[in-house]
C-alpha cells in the first residue's frame, strides 16, 4: 500500500510486517515518554540522582550516544573533505545515525536539567569559560546541521521528489553539502572535545581532572580521538545489523573493511594516547592534588580491572583486529571488533561520569552507589526506541544505501553466471 513511497526497484518487507516490527518500539517509546513526562512534571525527584550523584544514567547516555554518533561527522569529513568516494555507500545511513544520536542526546538533556524552560539562558548569559557552554552551543548547532544534511535524504523519497520544488532544492542543497560537512566536522570535533573537557576540568574531582593544552584538558583530545575511532565502528555495526535484519546486501564488504581500517588506526592512536595520559595522571596530576591514584581503585567494585578493560580489552584488542587485513576481511571478526570498540567507548564514558562521582573526595565521605530509577531507565529506553524507529523508517522509505539495488543486480548476475555454467556443463 505504501509502495509508491519506497524507492523504485529495492525490496522492502510488506507493510504488515513493518507495522509488526515497529509496534513494540512504539510501545517502548510511549513508555519512555511517559516516564520522561513524569520527570518534567513532577521534577527530578523522580530520579535516583541526588546531591552527591548529581549526574547519572542520562549523562552517561549522552556522552556515549554522542561518541557513537561521531560516525556522522567523521564519515562526512572523509567523504566530502578527504574525498573517499567509497563512503558514499554509507554516508546517508551515517547521517541518520548522527541525527538519531544527537537529537536523542538533546532530548535527554532537556529532561535532565532542573529548569528546562531556561535552556536558552545558556545562549543568553553564556559563560564562555565553561565546557558545558561549549557543549550546548556545539550540540545545538550541529543538530541543526544534521537536520539540514538529513533533508536531501528525505526529499529524495520517491513520492516527494515528484514535487518539483523539493526535487530542485534537494539537487541544489546536495551541491553545497560539502560546506555543511565541513561545518559539521568543526562543530562535532569541538563538541566531542568539550564533552571530554566537561570532566577533565573538574579540579575538585582529581579522579577526572587532567592537565592539557591551553584551556583544554587532555580528555578533550582523548574524547575526540576515541569518538572519531568508534564512529566508523558503530556504522559498521549498524550496517551489519541492518543487513542481518533486512536480510539484504546493502554495502560492499570493502566499504565496511575500509571503515574498519580507519577505525582501527584511530583506535590504536587513541590507546597510545590514553596510556600516556593515564601514566601522566597517575604519576603527576593526581598526586599533585593530594590524591594518590592507587586509592581510586581500592574502592570496590572499581578495581584496576576497569582500567585494564578500558585500555586493553576494549581498546588494544579491537584495534589489533581491525588493523589485521586478514581478520578484517572476515565479517565476523570485523563486526565483533567494532562491537568491542563501541563497548570500549561506552565503558570510558561510564568511568568518566559514574566512577568520578562515586569516588569520595572528603576523607569522611562514603563511597557512593547509585541505581537509576525506572523513570530514568524509561527515558533512556525512549531514546533507544526513537533511534530504532527513525532508522527503520528512513531505511524503508529513503535511500540509506545507494548501492543497494546495484548490489541486488550483482547478486542476480552471479546466479545467472552459475546457471550458464551449469548449462554449459551439460
Amino acid at each position, binding site marked *: 500500500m505504501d509502495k509508491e513511497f519506497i524507492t523504485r526497484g529495492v525490496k522492502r518487507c510488506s507493510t504488515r510486517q513493518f507495522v509488526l516490527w515497529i509496534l513494540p518500539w512504539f510501545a517502548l517509546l510511549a513508555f519512555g515518554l511517559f516516564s520522561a513526562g513524569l520527570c518534567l512534571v513532577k*521534577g*527530578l*525527584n523522580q530520579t535516583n*540522582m*541526588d*546531591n*552527591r*550523584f*548529581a*549526574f547519572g544514567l542520562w549523562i552517561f547516555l549522552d556522552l556515549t550516544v554522542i561518541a557513537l554518533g561521531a560516525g556522522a561527522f567523521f564519515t562526512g569529513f572523509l567523504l566530502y573533505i578527504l574525498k573517499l568516494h567509497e563512503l558514499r555507500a554509507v554516508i546517508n545511513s551515517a547521517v541518520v545515525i548522527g541525527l538519531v544520536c544527537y537529537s536523542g542526546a538533546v532530548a535527554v538533556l532537556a529532561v*535532565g*536539567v*532542573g*529548569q528546562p524552560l*531556561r*535552556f536558552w*539562558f*545558556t545562549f*543568553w*548569559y*553564556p*559563560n564562555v*569559560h*565553561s*565546557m*558545558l*557552554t561549549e557543549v*550546548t552551543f556545539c550540540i545545538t548547532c550541529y543538530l541543526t546541521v544534521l537536520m539540514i544534511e538529513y533533508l536531501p535524504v528525505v526529499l529524495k523519497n520517491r513520492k516527494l521528489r515528484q514535487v518539483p520544488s523539493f526535487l530542485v532544492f534537494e539537487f541544489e542543497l546536495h551541491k553545497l553539502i560539502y560546506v555543511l560537512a565541513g561545518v559539521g566536522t568543526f562543530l562535532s570535533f569541538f563538541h566531542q572535545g568539550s564533552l571530554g573537557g*566537561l570532566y577533565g*576540568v*573538574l*579540579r*575538585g*574531582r*582529581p579522579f577526572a581532572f587532567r592537565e592539557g593544552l591551553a584551556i583544554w584538558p587532555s580528555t578533550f583530545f582523548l574524547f575526540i580521538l576515541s569518538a572519531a575511532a568508534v564512529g566508523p565502528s558503530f556504522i559498521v555495526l549498524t550496517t551489519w545489523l541492518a543487513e542481518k535484519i533486512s536480510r539484504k546486501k546493502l554495502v560492499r564488504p570493502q566499504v565496511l573493511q575500509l571503515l574498519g581500517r580507519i577505525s582501527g588506526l584511530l583506535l590504536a592512536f587513541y590507546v597510545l594516547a590514553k596510556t600516556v595520559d593515564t601514566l601522566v595522571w597517575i604519576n603527576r596530576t593526581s598526586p*599533585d*592534588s*593530594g*590524591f*594518590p591514584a592507587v*586509592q581510586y581503585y*581500592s*574502592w570496590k567494585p572499581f578495581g584496576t580491572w576497569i582500567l585494564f578493560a578500558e585500555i586493553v580489552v576494549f581498546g588494544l584488542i579491537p584495534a589489533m583486529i581491525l588493523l589485521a587485513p586478514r581478520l578484517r576481511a572476515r565479517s565476523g571478526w570485523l563486526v565483533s571488533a567494532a562491537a568491542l570498540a563501541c563497548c570500549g567507548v561506552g565503558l570510558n564514558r561510564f568511568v568518566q561520569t559514574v566512577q*568520578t*562521582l562515586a569516588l*569520595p*573526595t*572528603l*576523607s*569522611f*565521605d*562514603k*563511597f*557512593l552507589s547509585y541505581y537509576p530509577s525506572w523513570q530514568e531507565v524509561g527515558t533512556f529506553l525512549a531514546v533507544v526506541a526513537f533511534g530504532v524507529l527513525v532508522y527503520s523508517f528512513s531505511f524503508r522509505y529513503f535511500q540509506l544505501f545507494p548501492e543497494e539495488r546495484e548490489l541486488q543486480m550483482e547478486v542476480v548476475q552471479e546466479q545467472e553466471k552459475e546457471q550458464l555454467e551449469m548449462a554449459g556443463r551439460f
Partner: protein
Amino acid sequence: MKRYGMSIDVDRCNGCGACMVACAVENNIPPAHQGANDRKGITWIRVYRVDNGEDFPDRRSAFVPVLCQQCGEHTPCASVCPQQAVDVDPATGIVGQMPERCLGCRYCMAACPYHARYFNWWDPAWPAGMEKTLNPDVALRMRGVVEKCNFCHGRWHAAKQRAAAAGKKDIDPADYVPACVDACPTGAIRFGDLNDSATAVAEDARKPESFRLLEKLHTDPKIYYRSKKDWVKEIASAPRPGARKESLRG
C-alpha cells in the same frame, strides 16, 4: 577589598546542629520533603560526624561543620557554570549563587569537592501557616535549581544598607555575622575578614593547628578548621580507604 572567611574550632563543636537549623531559618530553606534523605536534602551547612577509626571503648568522635568553602582561587563551581549563575564577588570574596539564573544542570555540584551545593529536588513547601515565619530578606528558590551557602548574603545586604544609612561606607564587623555563627551555642565558629590580620578569624587562620579541607586542590578555601587532635587534622587530606571507618552517622 574584603576576604570574608570563617574559622571553626572542631574541638569545641558538640554537633548539636543549631547552625544547620539556624541556617535554614535564616535562608528560607524548606523542611524536608518526606522523600528526602541525607543525600537529597538541603543543608547549606552540614555537620558531619568523623571518628578516629578505633573501636569501642577507644573510639572518639568529632563533629565537622561543612559549608561552602568559598574557594578563592579558580573556584571549581564558578568556572563550570554554563550561564554565569555563580560568581565570586571581588569586593567580599564570597562565592554567590543566583538561583533565578540557574538552569539546574548540576554541573557545579559535580565540580564541588566539598559537596556544599544542594539541588531543589522538590517544590519548596512549608506546613500551613509556617510560611509566616519566612525571612523577608531572602528570596525563595523554586524546584530544579541549585543553591548553597553565601555567608547569609541577606544579612550582608542588610548590614550594607544600615551602614549606608549611617553614612559609613564600610560595614561594622559586629553588624554582619552569618546565622550559623550567631546560633552556635559553643562559640566554635568565628567569622570575619581574613584580609584584616587583626580579626579573630585571621588570627585563628594563622594558628599552627588550623587547616583547610583538601588544600592541595589549590582552591584556596576561606573556611579554616582547627583541632589539637592529630586524627582530626587528618580529615583535611584525601580519603584513605581502610584507614578510617566510614562515618556512618552524621
